[in-house]
């Protein structure tokens, strides 16, 4: 089995990629501005919901239940799709999914497909695969179109081109669209002009192309229905106009019943874009002889999800409804943007999902890409305790390091071992403090340590407080009148 998650193969460790991102002034400005805007809108929309916490708990409860009985619900879903005239395909990994999709397109002698935003197709790098096989994919979501034309990667789960501003978008359009043929003499960076240009560019393709590829926000087991929530109406066109619809869906997207949408549809748009509802919510079941696609396929994708499911602490990452509220809330993401994560799923959720899907391979730095501030957990509509999972994954990383000879001798491991030894022997503490004071002597300047060899990662940008002459425990010991209240509980 070959589990692949886009970008991770060539990705540099997070600290290295982040260092570069942090120096990109334009990126910093764009990401900060966008995340601040969505954060504010989300906060307003959440504040008007008196039962928000109960909704979060319901969302978590439904997701937990689904994961507990996922095998049964997946079979029920398959039966529902088949009953309604659709076809279900099972893909164990990215390669299988891509082959299934390519074969389906080939069966219809199609050489182009239209796509509605699907992170799952980005996960398996479907576009480059289709192109290599002579099939041209057209992204129809505005942001995805910008990414595709700009030969870029998505940097956000909901707003993939969030790292670009309108001037940059205008340049991409001017360079990559046949503006003259479209009857546009001069494009400006006015948002309306940009949207209108994209609309004209896409409209012709919506009407021409016979095969569409979508993802799904939810797959309803009870009825075999799929649900796509979107803002631009491009999804509705992809889902209804072509003859053939292929939907690529991660196995964790199942919800038991139609009724459960009540919970998720109240939370998704509020969390994702700070709206009460998204403008378009499409629900469809199989095929209908008088309307919509004549042929409907669902490709159910594992690609590492079963590994995640097997971990009782980590599996909550599969609750994710891809709202990206954790990205917008995250102070790390809002300083680095999404590309630094080197994973199609960036931000806090990416930091716990990608390493698990890949069983840590190629994503070992991601669980450390967080200050554990907890803003992500607070924002998550399905209450994924991201800091808890990050710590859990860090433990796995450390364990695998310890198991290797080199890792066991790493500076960090030795430092942690020495610290533990000291903390296990409080009688040694005062001597250790004394050594620290002697050691820092030549480095103290103006009451602080502006430079400490071996700790330059700290002192490059921050002074370090100097160790004072007397620790608390030394002061307490010498406090004459209080000596009687000192006791040793050992």
């Amino acid at each position, binding site marked *: 089995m070959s589990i692949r998650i886009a970008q991770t193969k060539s990705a540099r460790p997070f600290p290295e990629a982040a260092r570069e991102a942090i120096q990109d002034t334009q990126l910093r400005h764009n990401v900060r501005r966008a995340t601040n805007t969505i954060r504010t809108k989300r906060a307003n929309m959440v504040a008007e919901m008196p039962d928000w916490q109960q909704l979060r708990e319901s969302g978590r409860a439904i997701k937990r239940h689904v994961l507990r009985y996922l095998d049964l619900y997946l079979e029920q879903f398959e039966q529902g799709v088949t009953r309604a005239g659709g076809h279900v395909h099972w893909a164990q990994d990215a390669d299988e999914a891509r082959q299934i999709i390519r074969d389906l397109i080939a069966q219809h002698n199609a050489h182009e497909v239209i796509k509605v935003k699907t992170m799952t197709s980005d996960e398996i790098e479907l576009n480059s695969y289709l192109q290599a096989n002579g099939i041209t994919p057209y992204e129809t979501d505005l942001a995805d179109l910008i990414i595709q034309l700009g030969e870029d990667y998505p940097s956000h789960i909901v707003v993939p081109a969030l790292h670009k501003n309108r001037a940059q978008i205008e340049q991409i359009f001017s360079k990559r669209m046949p503006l003259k043929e479209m009857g546009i003499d001069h494009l400006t960076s006015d948002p309306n002009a940009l949207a209108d240009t994209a609309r004209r560019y896409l409209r012709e393709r919506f009407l021409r192309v016979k095969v569409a590829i979508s993802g799904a926000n939810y797959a309803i087991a009870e009825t075999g229905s799929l649900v796509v929530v979107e803002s631009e109406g491009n999804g509705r066109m992809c889902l209804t106009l072509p003859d053939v619809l292929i939907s690529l869906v991660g196995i964790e997207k199942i919800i038991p019943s139609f009724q459960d949408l009540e919970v998720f549809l109240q939370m998704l748009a509020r969390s994702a874009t700070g709206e009460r509802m998204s403008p378009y919510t499409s629900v469809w079941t199989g095929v209908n002889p008088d309307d919509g696609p004549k042929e409907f396929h669902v490709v159910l994708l594992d690609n590492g999800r079963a590994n995640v499911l097997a971990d009782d602490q980590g599996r909550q990452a599969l609750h994710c409804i891809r709202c990206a509220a954790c990205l917008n809330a995250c102070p790390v993401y809002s300083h680095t943007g999404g590309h630094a994560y080197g994973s199609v799923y960036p931000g806090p959720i990416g930091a716990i999902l990608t390493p698990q899907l890949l069983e840590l391979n190629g994503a070992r730095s991601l669980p450390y890409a967080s200050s554990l501030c907890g803003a992500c957990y607070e924002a998550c509509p399905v209450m994924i305790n991201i800091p808890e999972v990050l710590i859990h994954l860090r433990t796995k990383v450390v364990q695998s390091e310890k198991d290797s000879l080199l890792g066991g001798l790493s500076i960090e491991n030795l430092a942690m071992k020495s610290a533990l030894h000291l*903390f296990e022997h409080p009688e040694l503490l005062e001597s250790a403090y004394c050594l620290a004071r002697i050691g820092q002597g030549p480095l103290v300047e103006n009451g602080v340590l502006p430079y400490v060899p071996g700790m330059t990662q700290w002192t490059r940008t921050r002074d370090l407080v100097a160790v004072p002459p007397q620790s608390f425990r030394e002061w307490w010991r010498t406090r004459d009148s209080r000596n009687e209240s000192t006791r040793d509980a050992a």
Partner: protein
Amino acid sequence: MIVSLFITCYTDLMFPQTGRAVVKVLERLGHNVEFRNSQTCCGQMHSNTGYASEATSLMRRFAGTFTDAEAVCVPSSSCVATIRTQYPKLAAETGNIALMAQVESLIPRVFEFSEFLTRHLGVDDVGAYYPHHVTYHPSCHGLRALQLGDAPYRLLKNVRGLDLIDLPQKEDCCGFGGTFAVKNADTSAAMLSDKVRSILDTGAELCVATDNSCLMHIFGALHRERTGVKTAHIAEVLAATEAEPFA
């Protein structure tokens, strides 16, 4: 009440004045403070970096040290958060029923300093006097893990002479995050830069918090940039009186 002080490892070594301030405030309120010498570290650094078995050893030490304490007062939100949110899991992973029970029974008796005063003792006014402009940084663990809410604000608002200035974007992390500050030094520094700007925007002379760890980080930049703005644990402000300004 006999209050057992858990000073925490880094406050013991780096910020003894915070411990002295906690003792002063609690004694002023009429309580007896005790210090148990077998205490060292809660294990947060180990646990948060992925060294779970090492953290478990330190949890055993903590639980053994304070098992019969009436109340344990801790001048650090993040250490209390480790005890409350991570100890039950670490204990469960040992499969040791006695340890699990010991930890479970101890946790409700462990308090962060400001919540201990306001919620456990029911005191909002500790009789402090500190005639300066102060801003308060709600540390992430105090804010989110412990839900301290208005507890620190109530204490500060009752300090005579103190002018409390609201910190813009106060809920944003300062970028410390323990080993995050060195493992991801550049991102950490970028986050810190925003926090410093917010603090300077207040015009305050002093930034206080319930965690010396965040303050050590913030101070590092405030001092490097020669801003002249100081940092102090909230206990140090609450310890100050007209008769005895806390130094």
